[in-house]
C-alpha cells in the first residue's frame, strides 16, 4: 500500500510563488535601466509572464536534490582515490581523453557559470532568471567536481597540472575557448540560443552520453560518476534551451529570422567543436562503445530530426548545412586525429597510431571512408615510424578564422581536396574551412576579424618566442613529458611498471 501523498500546495502553485511571486516591477528606476541588455539584439518580448520552467524546480528543492547528488558523488570519488582507482582503467592511453576533457571542457563549465550568473541578474523575466541562477550554480558545481575528480589522475599522469593556463593559450584549446568567448560576448538571447539550445539541447548528448558511457566501459569510475552527476543537471538545462527557443518564437514573428540565424550559426560552431569529441570516441578510448558516426545518427539525425520537426510549426527549419555536417560525420574524427598525430609535439596529451585491431574496427564502422582515405595515411605513417622517421608537421597550420581549427577539412563530396573558402573585409583576406564558418564571419565580420588566432599570434611574437621550445614554455607544457607519442612517454613507463608489478603479485 502506498501512503497518501500530502502536500500543502501543489507543484505549480509553489513554483509560481517561489519565482514570479518573488519578482516585482521597479518603480523609482525604469525597467529598461535595470535590465539594460535584453533588448539590443532585436528580440521582441511582449509578455515575460508567458515563460514557464517545465521542471518547475524551486530553489528549496534545488538545494535538496543538488545536496544529495553531491553526497553521492563525493562518496564515490573518495572511494576511487582510496582504492587507487587509476589502476583499474582499461589502458593508460585512455587518460589522454581525460586530459583533453579537463583542459578543453572544464574551463567552459566555469565560463558558463560566470555567464549564467550574469543572465541570472540581467534577464527581465523571473522564470528564465531563476533558471539561469540555478544553471550558474550547476556549472560551478560541474567545474569543481571535474577538477576534484581529475586531481586524482594528476597525481599519477602528466598533462593535467596547468589546465587553466593552457586553456587560455594553447592552439587547439583556442577552439573551445573562442567558441565560449563568442557566446559570452553576444547578447543574452543569443547566448541562450548558443549554449542552452544549440549546445545543451541539440549537441550535448554527443559530448556527455557516449563519452561517459565510454568512461564506464573503460573502468573510469570517477569520470562516469561526475559525468552522470553533471548530466542530471543537463536535462534541466536542455529544457531551458528548448523553452527559450519556443518563447522567442511565440512572442513575436519578427524574432524568427534572428533566431534562425543564431541556430544556424551555433549548430555549425558546435559541430566543429565537437569534432574533438569525435576524435576522442573513435581514437582515444581503448574500449569503444560506439563510433562518432553512430552517435551522430542517434543524437543528431534521429533526436534532432524529431526536435526540428516539432519546431517547424514556428517556421524554424533544420540548421543550415546540417546535411554537410552529417556527411562530415564520416570524416571528422579521422581528420582530427591526423591533425593531432602530426602536431603531437605541441599537444598536451599523447598520440599514437591505431593498431591493426583498431583499424579493423574503424573499417567496420566507416565502410565508406576509412579504408579508402584514412587507412593509407595511417599505414604510411606506420611505415615511416618503423624506419625511425616518425612523421611530424614542422610548419604551423593555416587556421580557420571562425572555428580556429587547422583548415584540414575536405570539400563536401570530395575527400581528396581540402576545402578552402575566403572573403575580404576592409581590405584584408580571411580564410575559412567551410561555407558554414564563412557565413558566420560574413554575418559579423567586425567580431571575427578580432579573432586571436594562435598561429598568427606566434608570428606576431606574442607567444613566448618563435621556436617550438619557447612556445611550449609559454604554454606551460613540459617538452618530452606532456607532449609527443604515448609510446615512450613517462605515462607509459609508469603504467607498464604497474602492470608488471601486478603480474609479479599474481605470480
Amino acid at each position, binding site marked *: 500500500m502506498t501512503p497518501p501523498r500530502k502536500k500543502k500546495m501543489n507543484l505549480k502553485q509553489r513554483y509560481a510563488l517561489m519565482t514570479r511571486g518573488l519578482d516585482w516591477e521597479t518603480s523609482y528606476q525604469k525597467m529598461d535601466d535595470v535590465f539594460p541588455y535584453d533588448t539590443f539584439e532585436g528580440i521582441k518580448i511582449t509578455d*515575460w*509572464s508567458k515563460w514557464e520552467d517545465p521542471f518547475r524546480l524551486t530553489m528549496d528543492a534545488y538545494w535538496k536534490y543538488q545536496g544529495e547528488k553531491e553526497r553521492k558523488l563525493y562518496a564515490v570519488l573518495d572511494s576511487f582515490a582510496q582504492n587507487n582507482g587509476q589502476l583499474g582503467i582499461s589502458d593508460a592511453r585512455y587518460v589522454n581523453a581525460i586530459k583533453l576533457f579537463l583542459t578543453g571542457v572544464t574551463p567552459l563549465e566555469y565560463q558558463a557559470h560566470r555567464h549564467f550568473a550574469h543572465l541570472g541578474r540581467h534577464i527581465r523575466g523571473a522564470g528564465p532568471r531563476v533558471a539561469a541562477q540555478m544553471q550558474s550554480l550547476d556549472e560551478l558545481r560541474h567545474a569543481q567536481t571535474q577538477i576534484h575528480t581529475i586531481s586524482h589522475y594528476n597525481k599519477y599522469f602528466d598533462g593535467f597540472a596547468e589546465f587553466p593556463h593552457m586553456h587560455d593559450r594553447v592552439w587547439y584549446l583556442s577552439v573551445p575557448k573562442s567558441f565560449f568567448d563568442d557566446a559570452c560576448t553576444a547578447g543574452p538571447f543569443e547566448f541562450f540560443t548558443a549554449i542552452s539550445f544549440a549546445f545543451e539541447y541539440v549537441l550535448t548528448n554527443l559530448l556527455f552520453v557516449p563519452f561517459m558511457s565510454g568512461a564506464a566501459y573503460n573502468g573510469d569510475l570517477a569520470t562516469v560518476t561526475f559525468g552522470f552527476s553533471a548530466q542530471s543537471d543537463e536535462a534541466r538545462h536542455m529544457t531551458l534551451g528548448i523553452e527559450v527557443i519556443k518563447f522567442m518564437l511565440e512572442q513575436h514573428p519578427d524574432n524568427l529570422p534572428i533566431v534562425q540565424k543564431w541556430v544556424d550559426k551555433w549548430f555549425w560552431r558546435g559541430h566543429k567543436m565537437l569534432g574533438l569529441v569525435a576524435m576522442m570516441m573513435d581514437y582515444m578510448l581503448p574500449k569503444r562503445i560506439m563510433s562518432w558516426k553512430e552517435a551522430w545518427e542517434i543524437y543528431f539525425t534521429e533526436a534532432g530530426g524529431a526536435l526540428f520537426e516539432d519546431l517547424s510549426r514556428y517556421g524554424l527549419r533544420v540548421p543550415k548545412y546540417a546535411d554537410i555536417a552529417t556527411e562530415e560525420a564520416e570524416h571528422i574524427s579521422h581528420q582530427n586525429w591526423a591533425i593531432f598525430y602530426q602536431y603531437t609535439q605541441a599537444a598536451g596529451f599523447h598520440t599514437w597510431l591505431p593498431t591493426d585491431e583498431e583499424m579493423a574496427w574503424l573499417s567496420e564502422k566507416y565502410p565508406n571512408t576509412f579504408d579508402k582515405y584514412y587507412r593509407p595515411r595511417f599505414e604510411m605513417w606506420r611505415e615511416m615510424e618503423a624506419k625511425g622517421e616518425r612523421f611530424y608537421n614542422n610548419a604551423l*597550420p593555416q587556421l580557420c578564422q571562425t572555428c580556429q581549427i587547422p583548415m*584540414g577539412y*575536405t570539400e563536401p563530396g570530395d575527400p581528396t581536396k581540402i576545402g578552402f573558402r575566403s572573403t575580404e573585409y576592409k581590405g584584408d583576406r580571411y580564410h575559412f574551412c567551410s561555407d558554414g564558418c564563412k557565413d558566420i564571419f560574413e554575418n559579423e565580420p567586425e567580431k571575427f576579424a578580432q579573432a586571436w588566432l594562435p598561429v598568427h599570434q606566434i608570428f606576431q611574437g606574442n607567444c613566448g618566442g618563435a621556436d617550438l621550445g619557447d612556445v611550449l614554455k609559454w604554454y606551460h607544457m613540459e617538452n618530452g613529458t606532456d607532449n609527443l607519442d604515448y609510446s615512450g612517454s613517462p605515462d607509459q613507463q609508469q603504467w607498464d611498471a604497474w602492470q608488471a608489478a601486478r603480474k609479479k603479485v599474481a605470480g
Partner: protein
Amino acid sequence: MVGGTNEIKREEVEMAVVALKPGYEEAVDFRDKHENFHGNQVVYLHWEEHLSFCSAIAFPLPPDMPFGALIEELIPTYYGMHPDYQSLNWEQVEWKIDGKPSTPDMSKSLAENGVGHKSLICFRTPGLNGYRGSCS
C-alpha cells in the same frame, strides 16, 4: 506579474552591426593586420593531393623574398619527408595563387608574383598524388 516590454526602436534593428553601444565597428582593433607582423606577410602554402599534411602551412615571409626560395628552401624543409617528394619534377608543377592558376617567376619576389598578406599558394604535382595514390 511582470509584464515589462522590450519593444525596440526600428533604427537599432536596421543597423548592420548588432552591438550594445553605437560605434562598435569603428572602435574594433583587427588583430592580423599586415603591420602587426614586423614587416612580414603571412603566406599559406599547400601541396594538393597530399593530405597527410593536414592543412595548408603558414609562414611569415618578407614580401621581397624571391618566389624561388619556396622551392629551394621552404618546400624541401617542410614537405621533404613525404615519399613523393623525391620524384617531384618542378617543371611540371601547376601553381595557383589565391585560387588563380599562375606561372610564377622564380627570380621575382613574392609581391611581384602577386602574393599578398594572407595569400594562399597551392601547388599540384601531376602524377604524384600521395601515398599509393590515396591523396595522403
